[in-house]
């Protein structure tokens, strides 16, 4: 059994509403019942309700597998990077440190690394992973390229990432606004790690202030909708 090659995972972090349906449903998947392999993080709850889901990106050349001293991480021919194999994994944590996306986790009580395997019991027979099935905002979508192109005309799927000097190609696609994808069809993984991020992770479409040139939209964080509210 193998994941059909015309079915892909598409993640649009802008659509994440933080409901954790994915996290809860992930714990119901037979491969790793009781534990969630998907993580959900607030970017900065103090500033925004923005959340992002973190799934395994199923890299074509998985860094986790390359640094594993026990050769416990295998990638099947359909491109899915499997979770650590029990007899081999020594829970050393190399993969946790090495993964550019922060995906693998060590379960100390069981002395093993576990990570998302795209619900392999489901995807290997052409069914959707649990997270993408239940996601009520479809921030997580599983289907064909044709379907996602038809459903998301304003976005483009990107699967190239730059992590320092490392160029990464993944099986999982990230949905990026079309005009941004056109400028640079890769995502800089470390951009958000800078002291002063280039742009805020939050998106709040607001009106231009009177006096702003030509009705151009202001940067998302420049207008506080509550600035006139007295305390």
């Amino acid at each position, binding site marked *: 059994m193998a994941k059909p090659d015309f079915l892909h995972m598409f993640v649009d972090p802008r659509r994440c509403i933080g*409901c*954790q349906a994915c996290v809860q449903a992930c714990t119901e998947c037979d491969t790793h019942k009781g534990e969630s392999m998907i993580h959900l993080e607030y970017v900065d709850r103090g*500033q925004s309700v923005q959340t992002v889901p973190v799934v395994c990106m199923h890299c074509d050349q998985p860094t986790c597998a390359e640094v594993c001293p026990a050769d416990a991480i295998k990638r099947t021919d359909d491109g899915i990077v499997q979770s650590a194999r029990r007899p081999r994994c020594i829970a050393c944590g190399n993969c946790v440190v090495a993964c550019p996306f922060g995906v693998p986790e060590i379960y100390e009580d069981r002395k093993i690394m576990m990570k998302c395997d795209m619900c392999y019991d489901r995807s290997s027979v052409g069914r959707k992973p649990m997270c993408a099935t239940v996601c009520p905002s479809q921030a997580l979508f599983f289907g064909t390229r044709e379907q996602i192109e038809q459903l998301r005309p304003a976005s483009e799927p990107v699967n190239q990432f730059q992590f320092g000097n490392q160029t990464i190609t993944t099986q999982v696609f990230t949905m990026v606004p079309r005009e941004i994808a056109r400028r640079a069809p890769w995502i800089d993984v470390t951009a958000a790690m800078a002291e002063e991020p280039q742009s805020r992770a939050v998106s709040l479409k607001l*009106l231009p202030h009177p006096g702003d040139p030509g009705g151009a939209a202001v940067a998302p964080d420049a207008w506080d909708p509550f600035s006139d*509210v007295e*305390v």
Partner: protein
Amino acid sequence: MATIPADELAIIGRYGPHVSTMTGLRLSTSVEPERLVKTHCCFCGQQCGIQLKVRGNEVIGFEPWEEFPFNRGMLCPKGVKRYLQGSHPDRLTHALARDPQAPAGFSALPYDQAIARVAGAIGRIQSAHGAGAVGVLGGASLTTEKTYLLGKFARVCLKTPFIDYNGRLCMVSAGAANKKAFGVDRTTSPWSDMVGTEVIWVAGSNVAECSPITTNYIWQAREQGAKIIVQDPRITPVARTCDLYLPVKPGRDAALFAGVLRIMIERGWLDRAFIDAHTTGFDQVAEYCSQWPLAHAAEVTGVPARAIEQAAEWWGTARSSFFFHARGIEHHSNGVQNSLGAINLVLASGRIGRPKSGYGTIVGQANGQGGREHGQKCDQLPGWRDIANPEHRQYIAGVWGIDEREMPGPGVDAYEMFRKIDAGEIKGLLSICFNPKISLPDTAFVTRCLDKLEFYAAIDFFLNDTAWHADVVLPGSLHEEDEGTVTQVEGRIIRINKAVECPGEAREDWRIIQDLAAALGRPQGFTFASPREIFEELRVASKGGVADYSGVTYEKVERQFGVFWPCYSEDPRTGAPVPDHPGTPRLFEPGSYNPVARGAGPFYFPDGRARFNVADYRPPVDDAGDEYPIYLTTGRVVSQFLSGTQTRRIGPLVKQYPEPRIEMHPRLAAKLGIADGDWATAETRRGAITLKAMVVTTIRPDTIFIPYHWAGKKSANHLTVAAQDPISKIPQYKVCGCRVRKADGPPDYAAVLEPQQ
């Protein structure tokens, strides 16, 4: 009965809430389910389709149901983990009797004795004080069969006028406004109509947390170019990325709608042809709106003038649109006016009753729609009929086999019922699917009333907080232990299927009601052998009413993945039998026929016209100011549901958001000297509670927000005001005056209670 029968911690220790986790079969990866049962979620009005995995007599997990068209396999965390409410340590498998001698205040009672005791008490109270000395409270998460049966039980068996339901806290403002404006109370369109519309206005609805599946519909509309307007004092997930955010001050929605409509009138952004042909009352509304020039509207509402103008332009010039609202504008002493204001905007645009244009309130509870149609409301009879209307009474009396003169008249709303308990008029109470000690405002008052009752019987599957005061608790059925129908947010009637049998002595709620009727010596009309039989009578009872279910069958519901009412068995025009009416997905289409207008027009009035109603702004009761300068608003979180009786017992959901927090803006927090995570005390004229602060920029700096799903000292309703809308009687949960200070230290409960307790 007077106070609670044992110490709070003793009751909690025995009856919970304790959290369930995945164990045993639910954790096994080598056990296959024996059956997959297609059904729907037991929680909110989205009524997501879901399959329950069953092995033996236990629900061991879930599987998405991707064919059900409304949600296509999508779910929220509550639906995913719902099954953990079954096989639960807190589950009531026996009837309980109040027993102060017992260590936890209750002792088990054999079912038949419990029924006899309840019937005996009801009989005694009614003999001594009259039929109206006993009241009934129902709920909108019950199946339609059960809501129908409960209404019939109150009128035919108990012969009391006093029945009402927890939808009083939910749908009634929108319901009353819909009735006044359209003559019918249902959303106008299937949700699928939304995709392809130009503008969606969401007023007072935290869609992503309270009706999560609707998020994808709104955002798919957006993919195709729709502009999204969100009106909310908080920047919720849907507000975060919307195209126009209206940061309205709590309680000021009618003023905002009037201000917007005034601009539309001034600029000619109206559908004059529609207004003239299909409505009445526009001129009075236009006159009212002229009192709301832009600067005044901006000042009162707290929404910047340019945002009001932009909203008016986008809404005014769109060629298709949807308007949704929910409790944010409805939970007010001005809730009906707020809703009417929204409807005025829709009518002025003329964009209703056609593809890609619609309107609706987003129903909160599983059967909020169906549960407000067939008689468990104080003024209602089946088919959305009126208990004060002689023709309606005559028809239903015929269906029920009683003399119309025996049928009681209208009762009073749920909160007024508590006032009657306080006054000693209502001495006995039977409740199901309602937890008023947590969900009604002014907890201190509600608790006093419970203590005054001579007799109180509760039907439930867990010992809910209100039932701590009960004399007898009857063990009812979980959603998955019964079958029937509910009507979800679009007005679509759907099937609830039974997955497992009731454990122990627990039994289906409809059996309990019928057993009570038999024990009271008045079984006539309460001998149904199944929910299907109840539904067959409901079809007849609803026939000819506005909410006509007479053409609906269980089989049609399954075949069509739901049936939108009205679904006729007879052509309303000619009376000729209609063999297989498909239902009515879209209301108010031009040329459509309804039995009230009889062809005069698409709306449900004799002249077929919708009504504009002057939608007055009035400031909230107990508004912020002086001693209580901050607005308190209350609401929900995605992982909890209503009073938390079920969801606070499900481990993974409690872990997601364990305890209520006070949400406040950093500017307010700085002024008060409060840091994120500090204990803070919020106080209103009614009470004070101490919770941890959550300091976030996503709320108006003059407002705090507290979710209400917790009990006891964590319950937000210690603070809220019981002010009710004069028409709908809905309480004003969404605003009152409040003050906040940093607490000296942790509250006492912090050391002894678990987060969900």
